[in-house]
């Protein structure tokens, strides 16, 4: 177990170094930062001085190591657009995105799993068929379109819910939360549904397919032959066996939700990291883009690590100590 975690951590570090390299190379794609930062009438001597001051005269690998060293300490420089430290900006924006992503993931699980189980157990009912058809729509409709429809119906026509922003937030330490105010919760509903729609359909279809598979296995037939109740068979035995793939997909989806919240955040003007990133792209604000890239990379690596460890909790075959077992 420990060896496994260490191996995974090492792999994670390698992934992060590669992500860091890509983020670092962004700086070289948009021309010479010195000429951007100095006024056009600056002399060559000014440029050289600036270059030296910024460490840009050093060889590539030295610069990269410096970049990684700073990044590890959370120092990604100053935003070109807003003139404030990038790390401060991200810390300000992170709670909004994480709360939105968390809510969307919860919707995905709390709706996706029960609906998936239902459609698997009542395979031939018309409700199942209707749900499956709807899920097809959910898989195929682009995210922003769902968001715009929801705004049109619930914000414009019905006027029940706000169409943009995050409402009032409460600050708890560094974290600003929208969970504690009425307007914050109201503002959360539409973007969370928009962002959660795809995970719901994906998880539901996955759970359904896995359940159908598991329900055909011998141990389910044997569980029924032992006279266990339908409830014990379906939920105790069958559902647990579908969880491993569901955990994988949900984990990856959570990363995806955070990363692709960009579109939902843009549609709803949600003050999260995604919106920050989109604005950064428009202004070629490289430090923000690089930091965002690294942060998303880190989130994916962490989620994957957690998912792998969850397997151990669910599946005893993985946590079995080697040796000492009866063998096959």
């Amino acid at each position, binding site marked *: 177990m420990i060896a496994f975690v260490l191996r995974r951590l090492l792999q994670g570090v390698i992934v992060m170094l590669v992500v860091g390299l890509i983020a670092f190379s962004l700086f070289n794609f948009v021309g010479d930062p010195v000429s951007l930062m100095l006024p056009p009438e600056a002399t060559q001597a000014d440029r050289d001085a600036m270059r030296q001051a910024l460490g840009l005269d050093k060889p590539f690998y030295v610069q990269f190591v410096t970049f990684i060293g700073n990044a590890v300490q959370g120092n990604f420089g100053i935003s070109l657009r807003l003139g404030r430290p990038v790390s401060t900006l991200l810390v300000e924006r992170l709670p909004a995105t994480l709360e939105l992503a968390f809510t969307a993931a919860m919707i995905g699980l709390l709706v996706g799993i029960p609906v998936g189980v239902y459609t698997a157990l009542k395979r031939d009912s018309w409700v199942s068929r209707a749900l499956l058809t709807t899920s097809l729509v959910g898989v195929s409709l682009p995210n922003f379109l769902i968001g715009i429809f929801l705004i049109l119906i619930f914000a414009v026509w019905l006027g029940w819910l706000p169409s943009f922003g995050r409402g009032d937030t409460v600050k708890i330490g560094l974290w600003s939360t929208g969970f504690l105010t009425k307007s914050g919760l109201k503002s959360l509903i539409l973007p969370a549904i928009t962002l959660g729609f795809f995970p719901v359909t994906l998880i539901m279809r996955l759970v359904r397919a896995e359940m159908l598979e598991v329900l055909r296995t011998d141990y389910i037939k044997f569980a*029924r032959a*032992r*006279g266990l109740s339908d409830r014990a068979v379906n939920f105790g035995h069958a559902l647990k066996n579908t969880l491993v793939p569901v955990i994988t997909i949900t984990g990856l989806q959570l990363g995806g939700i955070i990363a692709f919240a960009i579109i939902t955040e843009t549609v709803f003007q949600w003050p999260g990291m995604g919106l920050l990133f989109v604005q950064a792209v428009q202004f070629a604000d490289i430090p923000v883009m690089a930091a965002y890239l690294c942060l998303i990379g880190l989130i994916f690596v962490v989620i994957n690590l957690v998912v792998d460890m969850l397997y151990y909790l669910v599946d005893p075959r993985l946590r079995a100590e080697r040796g000492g077992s*009866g063998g096959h």
Partner: protein
Amino acid sequence: MPAATPDAKPLLQVKNLRVEFNTRRGTLVAIDDVSFDIAPGEVLGVVGESGAGKSITGTAIIGLLEPPGRIAGGEILLEGMRIDNLPAEEMRKIRGRRIGAIFQDPLTSLNPLYTIGHQLTETIQTHLAMSMAQARARAIELLAEVGIPAPERRIDHYPHQFSGGMRQRVVIALALCANPQLIIADEPTTALDVSIQAQIITLLKRLCRDNGTAVMLVTHDMGVIAETADRVAVMYAGRIAEIGPVQEVIHNPQHPYTAGLMASIPALGHEVERLSQIEGSMPRLNAIPTGCAFNPRCPRVFGRCTVERPSLLPAGKSLAACWLHAEGSVPLDLNKDWSEGAVHA
């Protein structure tokens, strides 16, 4: 050997059972007019080729036929009470409590994600009013009974930590949890090593004798049947071809199919140059011939066989579905039909 007296009140009665599968190509009759009884404590062997309907009969009795399969006719009675038309919840209470089941593959019969202790106590508590501690004590007792060493420790192990033979012992313990009156054992040893098979059969036989449990033993292994069963039913194309006391069926078969089946089994100590075989193969369910299903392959076929279906007729000490016995219960010596050099039709 107790119980197996023929005049005892039957524990299980299957009367004219018919199982159909509705498919897109029409209705397939998997089990057609099958009747037999099992007495308390009796071991009934059910043999036949793959697809003869052995397993489906067992599955139908415990009410676990998967759609599109369904019981289309006949009755199944447990101690005189009909169980084939019970509501699902009532039938569930019979499964595991009064009729236990053991399936072919012990490697896949246990849920890999739960300890065997969990699976045992769960089954015990489903059927018997026991506290967790009582159920656990009973589970350890059962594991010891089926010959699992160090059951107090092994009870907390997961299925993958057991070998195939040990897993089948656990499966047997699970089937015996609530002391059922009948166990339906569907090929309980087929997936196991030959050396383990004998152990498992001996165990099953001993436990059932000790508890007075009747067994319906479905297998295609005549050796296992000869060792274990009191009576044997031979199935062919979804029908019973012959049913009778085990030694009688083996040594003095009264249906040409049974005779052919016995002749095709290699025996130690007999020098035979070639094993005899029955020409052709069992008909598919959508192409069962009229009359006797065996008539295209039968060396003794005659006019009546191709037009009229024989029901089970008295034949010596057995019952055989064969028109050769239409004249009365004269035992026939069919063995020579399949001996070497016999000319087959």
